[in-house]
């Protein structure tokens, strides 16, 4: 088993969607190379503990559970930690707006490290090639200049003024348009994007990806959408996001090495990769070693 760095150990880590966790029944998963069992109790609060022979589908004997791991609920998901997590999760204030459609969009296993998946989420250059005719289409391939900063106050990477020409940016979009994005990386394995909303140009749709690092080279991607869309059904919105993610999966699983290399000389960045470079530096400075190839020396 790989050593887990202290920063990663103290983070909140996502493990499952709340409404997909039946109360009183054992669910199992893998987090940071460790087997976990979890369920919800009679008050529907999540309970997470280290797995000790339980099988998925067993009826939970709450008395028999030994040490319980810390738990927090957030954005429709159950989060836990092996260390001393902060009092709260990172904020996504839009989630609380009453008229939004908030939904989990499934949990998808990926044979790649969590940081590789975050980096892909931040990347616009692949839209015409991987999400052809949805998030981008040749020949419109340009990634225009955008701004990146690491906010010290909030300890997150922030990319703003990101623009890309998209043939069908959202389910409710009917024609091509230049779409503006803002990306946040508020957690080493989570990212949130804000994009122009086709229905209301004063507001922005929110899509977030929460990566569950199962091993250094495997993760599960849990997706959240918080949409301003009065027309589409939840099923349609979920299907759209799953289509997008289904297109990313085979590319991500063909990336080598599977852990994210933090040495600047391991790959070749271009200006369009400014946010990825900031993300890699931020991980490096934090001292994250799980799921990455740290810079030597």
């Amino acid at each position, binding site marked *: 088993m790989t050593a887990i760095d202290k920063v990663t150990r103290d983070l909140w880590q996502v493990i499952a969607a709340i409404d997909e966790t039946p109360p009183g029944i054992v669910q199992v998963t893998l987090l940071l190379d460790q087997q976990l069992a979890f369920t919800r109790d009679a008050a529907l609060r999540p309970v997470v503990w280290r797995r000790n022979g339980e099988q998925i589908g067993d009826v939970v004997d709450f008395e028999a559970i030994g040490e319980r791991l810390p738990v927090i609920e957030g954005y429709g998901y159950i989060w836990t930690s092996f260390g001393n997590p902060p009092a709260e999760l990172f904020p996504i204030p839009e989630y609380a707006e009453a008229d939004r459609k908030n939904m989990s969009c499934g949990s998808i296993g990926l044979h790649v490290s969590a940081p590789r998946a975050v980096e892909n989420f931040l990347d616009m250059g*692949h839209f*015409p090639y991987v999400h052809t005719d949805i998030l981008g289409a040749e020949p*419109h391939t*340009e*990634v225009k200049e955008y701004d990146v900063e690491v906010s010290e106050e909030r300890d997150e990477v922030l990319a703003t003024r990101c623009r890309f020409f998209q043939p069908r940016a959202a389910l409710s979009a009917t024609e091509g348009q230049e779409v503006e994005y803002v990306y946040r990386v508020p957690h080493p394995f989570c990212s949130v994007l804000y994009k122009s909303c086709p229905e209301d140009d004063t507001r922005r749709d929110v899509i977030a990806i929460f990566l569950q690092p199962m091993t250094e080279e495997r993760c599960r991607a849990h997706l959240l959408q918080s949409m301003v869309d009065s027309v589409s059904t939840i099923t349609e919105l979920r299907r759209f996001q799953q289509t997008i993610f289904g297109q990313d999966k085979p*590319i991500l699983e063909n*990336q080598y090495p599977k852990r994210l290399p933090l040495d600047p*000389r391991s790959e070749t960045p271009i*200006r369009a990769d400014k946010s990825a470079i900031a993300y890699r530096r931020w991980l490096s400075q934090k001292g994250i070693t799980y799921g990455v190839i740290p810079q030597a020396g």
Partner: protein
Amino acid sequence: MALSVSDPTWFPIASSADLPLRHVYHGQLLGRELAVWRADDGNVNVWENRCLHRGVRLSIGVNEGAELKCQYHGWRYANRSAGCTYIPAHPADAPARRITNKTYPAVEAFGLVWSAGNEDVPFAPFPGADSGDWFALRPMPLNAPAEAVMAALLGYAFQPATALDAPAADMQAEPLPGFAVRLTAHAGAERQAAIFFVQPVDAARSVIRGLLDTTPADRLAVLRHHNERLDKLRTRLEREAARQPAPAPLQPSFDKVSVELSTMPEIAIPRGTTLNVVVKRKWTTADGIIGFELAGIDDNHLPTFQPGAHIDVHLPNGLIRQYSITNGPGELLSYVIGVKQENAGKGGSKVLAETVREGDVLAISEPRNNFPLRRDATRTVLLAGGIGITPLLSMARFLDKSSLPYELHYFVRSGEHVAFREQLDLLVGKVIIHTGLPPDAVGTTIATTLGAHSRAQHVYVCGPGPMLETVRNTAAGLGWPEEAVHFEYFKNDKVIDASSTFEVELARSAMTLQIPSGKTILEVMRDNGLIVPSSCEQGACGTCLTTVMEGEVDHQDVYLNESEKRSNTCMMTCVSRARSARLVLDI
């Protein structure tokens, strides 16, 4: 013989039949994954299976015939050199840095593709290779270490192709250097030899690749015969291997990219080294235009170029002149340039046309690109006048190969003035030749051709000065924005503003010079006894390129492209000056 990632031995890694048109084959040798692909010109490329940008396997990329395109971000890599020719995220930039994927040596022979982990030893065919009409068997992959497979192959028995049903043949085995064995089967009067090679895929995985010394009459029956027997061998070897502790996988490492590639922004100082080329062919391609084909020495491929790129040619009389490369994608065995035969003056072109002959060796620079082609247009208009066809021919051939929409308008005085007609004829339906138009008709033709501008349309023009002006004015009149109109200068026709006065500090020479108005930095350096190289002294050739360490440059040259100028890291001392009071140069 223990396996090592640094083993220089050549192994077969694929069958020729694994490389059909426009396919990319996923191979592996000594733990290294390989992307193996055949270009339309027949050349077989064996590359590290990893795009240098984000590590995605190139074996899932697209073989476009002359370039391999990565699936993730569409980066393109050229046949032969594996040099990057285009980065779609920045369509207006020429990739300034030399981004080149790792390649491995490749030879196609006897129906197999051969490669090695490095280039330490040249390819040598197996002993007796020239005595057979070799026929490749189907490969047999197996989960067993190469050494064990090799040992078992010594005892492999088969029937000659002409005696498949005869009593069991007598076998003779003769081990060959490397992981190979020559086996001979005798069945009565019938005899057949075969060579079997073991390709070490990784420490615990191998592929058996066999060659028969004759092509059998009934190929299928013979292939089946060997498949059945090799399959039995595989079953036995895999069972034995499963009982042994698995050997540790080989650990090949990825080479690091250069510091230059790893840093941003991506401005490289274009200080080209020169290379020697031989004039392979010199011919009159049109009335007054001479074609030169310049090939690498020793059949080595030439450096990667992008459409629109030019080379500096160092002439026997000491002059340096720029000529555009006319080649299509992936053509790196030679560069073809066109030279206008000038009757008057001492011009460099006159020297090339009159004194340089086939077989002569010339020094050229690596290709530079001040005229990059965007490949993100919905319509591309190429306008050539006379000798200006050269960069546009290259652009047209790239666009044509990728099936991108374009049209090439070629303005000439008469049919005899059409250069490179054999290449133009291949661009079926895309080339419009305008012959003998009076100047005003050229203007109206250009206006009709351009039409009103709409999103993602671009025009590229190369030709005589007046034509360039006509295109710029016409395009502007029709509402084409400046960034959609692309052209290139080979001569600096700008009026140089030499009015400023400033101070120059030469860091390495520990000198401080005052530059008065009316004098160039180059002249003042010479007045102070410094020997500095220069050639055209009009900011066009790049010879006096100098690194800038401090200060703001007033660029007046036509050599550096816009991004290089913006980087403020280099300048031409023959025409450029300072905007700041002081410049610090690395001289």
